[in-house]
């Protein structure tokens, strides 16, 4: 057991897969000689060579598409797309190919591949580089979406992603790479569709994923001082979605806020909120609240950008507004 960063947890998951499964290889822009834009693949080229650590041209479409093809042929490609914003250039390959082939071939074809990508804002990269688009992928049948919030989950979910028989979008938040946490030496894996109660509480449920979990935990600490006992749930995977854990919590607390860094309208939080009120309407003391990104392209200026992203105080005040606590 040791404390490592989320970055190192991902690197460990990749290394382990490369060591244990010959079908696994990595592909992406600048993952090799540049050592990875976020340094997740640092040292891997030196260790595994060009056949398994493939620097690619800047061609997101064919990079994802070639991974789909390699997966069709039985390999297990792990692609790095530098940020989720650039996946816009490979949408067709993800949504109309990777996600569809199993169904359209009636199971003759499998596409076991992982697309690792960096999501989220808050690093002053401007509007083109700061989006949280994972919710779109989570709406597509045939895809799976994982978005870890800490090193333990990152490793456990990555193992499941690599072992999965379907295409998985693995969204790593740009501002979580330095988060530290304990990771056991012994093998474990985290099944998809199992949310985690990060903090138990009786008064209100905060549902979040990825960086939102940290925001929710911060809010819980503030709420505690106010005498409000929040339960924080980390969804861990957006598709499949663990509705049971969320609903059980809501039935206990009768109050719930969904935290989501994406734009509020049509963000993943909308799905979670809809699902909750559909299934637990009678348990609710008030509407399912949403704390989400404001509906603007991300501004470069740091103060402005921060004001557009959800923070703990917004969670606290939303709870106050809705539930008067």
């Amino acid at each position, binding site marked *: 057991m040791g404390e490592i960063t989320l970055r190192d947890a991902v690197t460990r998951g990749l290394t382990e897969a490369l060591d244990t499964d010959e079908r696994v290889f990595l592909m992406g822009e600048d993952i090799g000689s540049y050592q990875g834009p976020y340094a997740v693949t640092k040292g891997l080229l030196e260790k595994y060579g060009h056949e398994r650590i493939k620097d*690619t041209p800047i*061609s997101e479409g064919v990079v994802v598409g070639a991974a789909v*093809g390699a997966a*069709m*042929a039985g390999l297990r490609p792990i692609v790095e797309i530098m940020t989720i914003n650039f996946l816009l250039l490979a949408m067709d390959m993800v949504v109309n190919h990777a996600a569809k082939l199993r169904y*359209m071939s009636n199971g003759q*074809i499998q596409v076991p591949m992982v697309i690792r990508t960096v999501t989220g804002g808050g690093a002053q990269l401007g509007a083109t580089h700061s989006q949280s688009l994972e919710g779109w992928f989570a709406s597509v049948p045939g895809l799976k979406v994982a978005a870890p919030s800490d090193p333990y989950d990152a490793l456990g979910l990555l193992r499941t992603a690599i072992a999965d028989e379907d295409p998985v979008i693995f969204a790593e938040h740009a501002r979580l790479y330095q988060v530290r946490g304990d990771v056991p030496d012994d093998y474990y894996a985290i099944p998809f569709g199992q949310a985690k109660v990060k903090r138990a509480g009786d008064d209100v449920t905060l549902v979040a994923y990825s960086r939102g979990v940290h925001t929710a935990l911060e809010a819980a600490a503030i709420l505690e001082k106010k005498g409000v006992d929040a339960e924080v749930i980390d969804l861990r995977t957006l598709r499949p979605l663990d509705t049971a854990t969320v609903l059980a919590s809501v039935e206990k607390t009768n109050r719930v806020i969904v935290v989501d860094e994406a734009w509020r309208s049509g963000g993943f939080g909308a799905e979670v909120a809809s699902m909750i009120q559909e299934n637990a309407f009678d348990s609710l003391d008030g509407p399912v609240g949403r704390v989400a990104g404001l509906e603007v392209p991300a501004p470069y200026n740091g103060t402005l950008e921060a004001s557009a992203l959800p923070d703990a105080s917004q969670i606290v005040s939303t709870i106050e507004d809705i539930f008067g606590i």
Partner: protein
Amino acid sequence: MDLGNSQAVQLYEKMLLIRRFEEQSGRLYMQGKINGFLHLYIGEEAIAVGAISSLRDDDYIITHYRDHGHALARGVHPNLIMAELMGKVTGTSGGKGGSMHIFDVSKGFMGGHAIVGGQMPLAAGLALAIKYRGEDRAVLCVFGDGAVNEGSFHETMNLASLWKLPIIFLLENNLYGMGTHIERTRAGGKDIYLNADAYKIPAAQIDGMDVVAVRDSFTEALERIRAGEGPVFLEAMTYRFVGHSLQDPQSYRESAEVDQWRIRDPIDTFREASFVDGLLDDGQITRIGERVDAAISEAIAFAEQSDEPGPEALFENVEG
């Protein structure tokens, strides 16, 4: 023609099978038994047959939505394809794929892809897997002249050459993408093979109406590919004798143009040349025609008698 008798029979029979299959598909579409989009391969049969007859069983094929011809040439059973077109549970995809999405992985037939250019990056991946494993298999990647203007073409050509992937790019240049002539969509004009040079991929333009020419070019290209020297690009000049799909009013071309190309019908010309060369006689020609008609009738009967998929099929094979 440098061809044995049994080869001539095979090539002719396959081409005729495709022709008759397509004719009947068109008819069944008009009857409402086939739905959605239907793109026929009539006029282009020599390409699929010439190309695919030169492949090994363990090679992969991946193609576009105009895919019946390639599937039939590969030996995917006509019953299964026809059942798929009719949306039946016995079809190649149990009726869930349809005409544009024919798959038979047991034959290395990796689809039938309906997004123009979409199959190209996948072809690169199939080839990458072959190379990764150190095998000497090849990937046949089929696409149309219209696909050449998609970004996916460019990205795939570059990657395939850069990584020396074992792909044979087969461009079916029938001069039109839907109703728009290539001279109105491509700055480089209609001789697309010239573009391969930009990627350092060896290329040639071949006569897509001549099944033997196609086959011979393929045999040569495949040697190079299996030797690990990277991709080859072949542009087969051809023409579709019918509309883009069954929806196509064909207002964009003159019937004289169609007639001009029909003179070069790949099946008629091959039959006549084979007859002259003594490779096919009247009796054989008749028997082949009968066999093909029987196969098509069987396919239609099989498809018509097959069940539709039951409701349980809806949620099957969404995920693994």
